[in-house]
C-alpha cells in the first residue's frame, strides 16, 4: 500500500505509470501538522558546532567519517561558525581558561540550539578533578544529552545525536518561547547557580588520593 492509497481519491485513479497521486484529477497536496513538518526539518538537518578539545574529538571525527557516516542523519555539515550551527558538541575537557570561550560560542549560536556533552570530562570533569578544570560543562551551558565514555565510541555519539532528534520530534511550536526563551541578562554568565555548582562538583570527586594529598589522616596513619 503506497502513500497514494492513503490520499483521498489517490488510490482509485491510478495512471498507467503507477504514480496515481500525480495523475489527472488526483489531489496534489498532503495534510499534516505544522509541528511535525518543522520538527522533521529541524531534526534531519542538525548542523553540529564541533567544540573538540581532546581525544573525544578524534571519536567525533571518526563518527563524521565514512565508516560511521554521521551524514546519514543529516549532520554532514560540521559548522565551524557558531552562527550556522544547531547543536554544540563539546568533545573533551574544558579548562577554566576556556570556559568563557565555550560560553561565548553558545551565546553566539542562534535559536533553536541544543548541546551534547560528549565524554566523561565534558560531562563531569572526568579524572581531571583539579584546580584548572571545569567540573562538567553543564555549569557553563545548558546540556541536552550527555554521552558517557572515555572517549565514547562513535556509535555512542550517534546515539546521543539521535536522542537529540527524538527530543526535537516531541517539541511543539506553540511552546517555542517556553523552550527557547533566553534572558539577555544571563549572556556570558554561568548556567548553574552557586549551590548547584557546589552540589555538582563537590569535593567528593573522583581523584583517588585527594585525602592523602591534602594531608588528612587516613586509617593507616591516624592510629
Amino acid at each position, binding site marked *: 500500500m503506497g502513500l497514494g492509497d492513503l490520499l483521498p481519491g489517490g488510490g482509485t485513479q491510478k495512471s498507467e505509470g503507477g504514480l496515481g497521486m500525480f495523475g489527472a484529477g488526483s489531489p496534489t497536496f498532503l495534510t499534516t501538522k505544522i509541528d511535525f513538518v518543522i520538527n522533521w526539518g529541524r531534526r534531519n538537518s542538525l548542523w553540529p558546532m564541533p567544540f573538540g578539545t581532546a581525544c573525544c574529538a578524534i571519536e567525533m571525527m571518526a563518527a563524521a567519517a565514512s565508516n560511521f557516516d554521521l551524514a546519514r542523519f543529516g549532520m554532514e555539515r560540521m559548522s565551524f561558525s557558531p552562527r550556522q550551527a544547531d547543536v554544540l558538541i563539546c568533545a573533551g575537557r574544558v579548562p577554566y*581558561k576556556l*570556559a568563557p570561550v565555550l560560553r561565548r560560542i553558545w551565546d*553566539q549560536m542562534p535559536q533553536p540550539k541544543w548541546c551534547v556533552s560528549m565524554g566523561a570530562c565534558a560531562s563531569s570533569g572526568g579524572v581531571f578533578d*583539579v584546580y584548572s578544570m*571545569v567540573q562538567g560543562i553543564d555549569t*557553563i551551558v545548558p546540556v541536552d544529552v550527555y554521552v558517557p565514555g572515555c572517549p565514547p565510541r562513535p556509535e555512542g555519539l550517534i546515539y546521543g545525536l539521535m536522542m537529540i532528534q527524538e527530543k526535537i520530534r516531541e517539541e511543539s511550536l506553540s511552546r517555542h518561547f517556553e523552550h527557547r526563551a533566553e534572558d539577555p541578562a544571563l549572556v*556570558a554568565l554561568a548556567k548553574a547557580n552557586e549551590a548547584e555548582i557546589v552540589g555538582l562538583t563537590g569535593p567528593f570527586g573522583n581523584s583517588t588520593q*585527594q585525602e592523602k*594529598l591534602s594531608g588528612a*589522616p587516613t586509617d593507616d596513619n591516624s592510629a
Partner: protein
Amino acid sequence: MTERPLSGLDAVERGPLPSDPSAPAAPAPVEGQSDHPSVAALASRFGPAVQGHRLMAGDQTVVWIAPEKSLEILTWLKDDPAQQYDMMSDVTGVDYGSGRPIEVVYQMFSTVHKRALRLRCRLPLEALEIDSVAGLWHSANWLEREVYDLFGVTFKGHPDLRRILMPFDYAEGHPLRKDFPLRGRFSRAEQTRRALAQDVERFYGSQELAHGGPPQQVPARTEPEAEG
C-alpha cells in the same frame, strides 16, 4: 574509637599540610671528575660559584651553580668559543616540597660542539628570584614565564613577565608548588564565576574573536509607540 576520617571537604577547608619530609629530595652533586669538557672549564673559571656536578640518567651532565652568578655563567656558556651553547632547549622548575629550595633548571645544547648541558640553581623559598636569560636566548622568554606562572619564581629583567598558562587574573597562587591544594584555593562556584568574568579579548586576538560576530543578544520586547 577513633575520630571519623576527615572527608575531602574538611581537608579542603583546612588546607594542605606540609609535604612529607621523608619524600625524596633533590639529587646531590657527587665528588670526582667529569668527562664533560664544560664542567672543568666552568670550575676553573667560576670557582666557588660552581657548586658541583653529577652524571644523571646515563649521559646527562648536571652542574649546580649559584643563582646570584647565573646570568654571568650562562652568558659565558653562550659566548665562549669553546662552549657556544646556542640553544636553550628548556627552562623549568622543580619543587621538592617540605620547604626545600625550588630549583630552576636550564637545559642547553650546543649545535656547534654537539654537546648538551644542564644547569640547576637552588632558590630558597624566601628569595625566589633569579636573573632572566631571555636576553640571551629568545626561547627562554616563554619558558621563564611558565616557571613564573607555575612556581612563582621572579625572573629579574624579563621583558614581559606575565602568566602564560593560567589566566592573567588568576589569584589562587602558583599551581605546581607542592603546597598548592589539588583543587585550588577557591570553591568551584567561585572558580566558575571568576572564569566566566575573564576578559576574553585579553588573550585572544581581535581577528579570532570577530570570526563569529558579537555575542548573541536577544532584543528586549518593546511596545510599539502610538502615533500621535
